[in-house]
């Protein structure tokens, strides 16, 4: 692999986490959530040791629900992340003038970076970049009727929905409720089975796609148009590897998907080990895209 960018190599030397990683034969800098929690506890550091002391965050946001870890981000981090999200939207086929609905919490990265009115200190969210019109429900399952109301009166062309909210929504939809052109399902650090996606697609009567998402790395990637288990992470936003954690195995791949986040610099994310197992290829995808493609096994 290419060496890490110079700015990132320098940031690694400053962020406390990476000096504290004494791993069990893992590749350099690889870490997982336990490492973050250990540093957070030992150093009384809510950023889990990922904060770059050379930067000045303007926002602190929780990394994921039920996890007492936080991002400290500056305005440039926010903008780069929003641009990365806008890239994902383009890949999904979202265009200028589209109405985009969300059935998720406003703290979800896929919502928060959608609009400058959702995230403080963000100059342009994905919807601002693409000149789309966003509307957000909340994420609570009991608010499914309100999401159905949005579908009926706003008629978004795309609905982003947290996986746990899909079944509650399907229960309240009737046949007359307008469907979005596409429904994009997301779940933090897990994938919904293809069978389930197909079932939702059939019940919903619209295209249902799934994004790869890991909030602990502030990572997301849109799906390939041809293979629902292949994803195309932004090359400017992320560096993705399949890390083989068993040196005795000998084969370079597949492995656990590790994410290096190139969009955020105030919090340093290098080789965060997600729970996904898969293969990373850099050949041209059959959908025509170049750049890295992650296929989850």
């Amino acid at each position, binding site marked *: 692999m290419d060496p890490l960018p110079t700015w990132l190599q320098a940031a690694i030397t400053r962020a406390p986490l990476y000096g504290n990683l004494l791993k069990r034969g893992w590749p350099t800098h690889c870490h997982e959530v336990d490492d973050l929690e250990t540093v957070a506890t030992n150093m009384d550091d809510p950023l889990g040791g990922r904060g770059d002391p050379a930067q000045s965050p303007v926002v602190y946001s929780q990394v994921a629900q039920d996890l007492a870890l936080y991002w400290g981000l500056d305005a440039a981090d926010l903008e780069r992340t929003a641009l990365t999200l806008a890239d994902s939207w383009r890949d999904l086929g979202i265009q200028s003038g589209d109405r985009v609905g969300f059935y998720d919490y406003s703290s979800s990265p896929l919502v928060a970076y959608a609009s400058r009115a959702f995230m403080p200190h963000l100059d342009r969210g994905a919807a601002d970049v693409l*000149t789309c019109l966003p509307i957000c429900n909340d994420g609570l399952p009991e608010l499914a009727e*309100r999401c159905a109301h949005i579908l009926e009166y706003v008629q978004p062309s795309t609905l982003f929905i947290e996986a746990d909210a899909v079944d509650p929504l399907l229960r309240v939809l009737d046949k007359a409720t307008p469907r979005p052109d596409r429904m994009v399902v997301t779940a933090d650090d897990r994938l919904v089975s293809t069978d389930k996606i197909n079932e939702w697609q059939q019940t919903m009567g619209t295209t249902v796609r799934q994004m790869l998402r890991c909030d602990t790395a502030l990572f997301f990637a849109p799906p390939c148009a041809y293979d629902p288990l292949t994803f195309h992470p932004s090359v400017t936003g992320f560096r993705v590897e399949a890390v083989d954690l068993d040196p005795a195995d000998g084969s370079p791949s597949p492995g656990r998907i590790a994410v290096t986040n190139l969009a955020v610099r105030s919090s340093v994310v290098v080789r965060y080990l997600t729970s996904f197992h898969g293969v990373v290829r850099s050949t041209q995808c059959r959908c025509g895209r170049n750049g890295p493609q992650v296929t989850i096994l």
Partner: protein
Amino acid sequence: MSDLRNGEYFDCGEIATADELRSARWQAVSEVVGAAFDDLPFYKNLWTTHGFHPSPAVTPDDFARIPLVRKLDLVSASRQRRSAFSGVEAMLGLNPSNLVMTSGTSGFHTFAALTGHDLDGAGLLAQARELWTMKVRPGMRVLSISPAWHALGLYETRALTEIGAIPVMPSGTLTPRFVGDILNAVDQLKPEHLLVTARAIRMLLEECDRRKLDAREVFRNVRYIGCAGEPLSLPFREHLRDRFELEDVFERGGSGDGMFGGAECFAHRGHHVSADVHFVEIVSPMTGEILGEGERGTALVTNLTLGRSVYIRFDTEDVAEIVPGPCPCGRTHPVVEFYGRLADSIVIADRVLAPGDVRLALDDVPATRFLSFAMVSDGAEGLVIGLQGAEELAPGELSESATGTATRLGVPVSIVPAGVETTGWKEARIKRPGGRG
């Protein structure tokens, strides 16, 4: 807005004289009403039906003839068009940047549109003033969970940015499911200010108790709390100040319908509403008559700027009054005190008794302080209050509370045990059955 950053206490608009405010108001009203009649189908239809045709310079008398807009009018327009756009969207030729919706107190979530013109302009100004009034300052860590579906949440996001505060944002939303995350964020990131709801504060206190944590220790860095959602009684404020060792607790809030709001200053007389952005009138819910300062009715709002969904003489159905007299803080804009939703209130002998009145009265008596309640019925005999946990009170305590509440409210009161599943009147309203969300 730049003067907000350099430590000025007021922007110049906040201390305009009454004459300046009045003059600017009627000029803005003329522009907004004219634009609404020319370009907005909802108002054109409504006003034409009622025989109202605005003159180029709208006078107070003209304005008083403009028919009131009720939530059901907007619901009806939305339903007829089967669209989020009900015909009140004054976009100034711009694309809307965001759609928001109301909490649906009439059983239907209406929608509103915003543009960058408003998010960077009047909407931002009003919200930045609100936060500043509550002591939000540049560089201050401020816990905020602003919902992305609510107009005031979007304004809060932009105002925190403009002021240069450092938001602390836990996951989720202000519901019990996320109280642990909120408490952790307070403990770990040590915000100086919390922008939450009264319900969330109660949840946080309960969570401290559940975890056997010293609230003063967890909240050691918190100096201020801005509470939305319901009126705060003096005992509740004192309770919070004591439990958290706060410097001050501010009541704040407004209406998703009408997209306006305000916050208390240190004088705690009511909500300062930006008079150069919104015009608030109080009318009698029984007769529609315009009421004077100090008289209680429901609040009408007229937005004085365009580039957003515009509400003109919109009846928020919030029980309110304009507090008379100058405010010690020096702001010259009106102070509006809100008491709760008209739909949750009871009219006895031509008096509107709102849930906030009952809350204040119950909190005056130690035995019934902070207990959940419901206004059960409005029989001819007076007000019946269903009180959670009333069966555990001694007969003397119950009668003392009933007597004290009756004295304060000026009507006969009886208190009966009741199973109130939620933690306050606001939540009872939100969870009312029948699709009222």
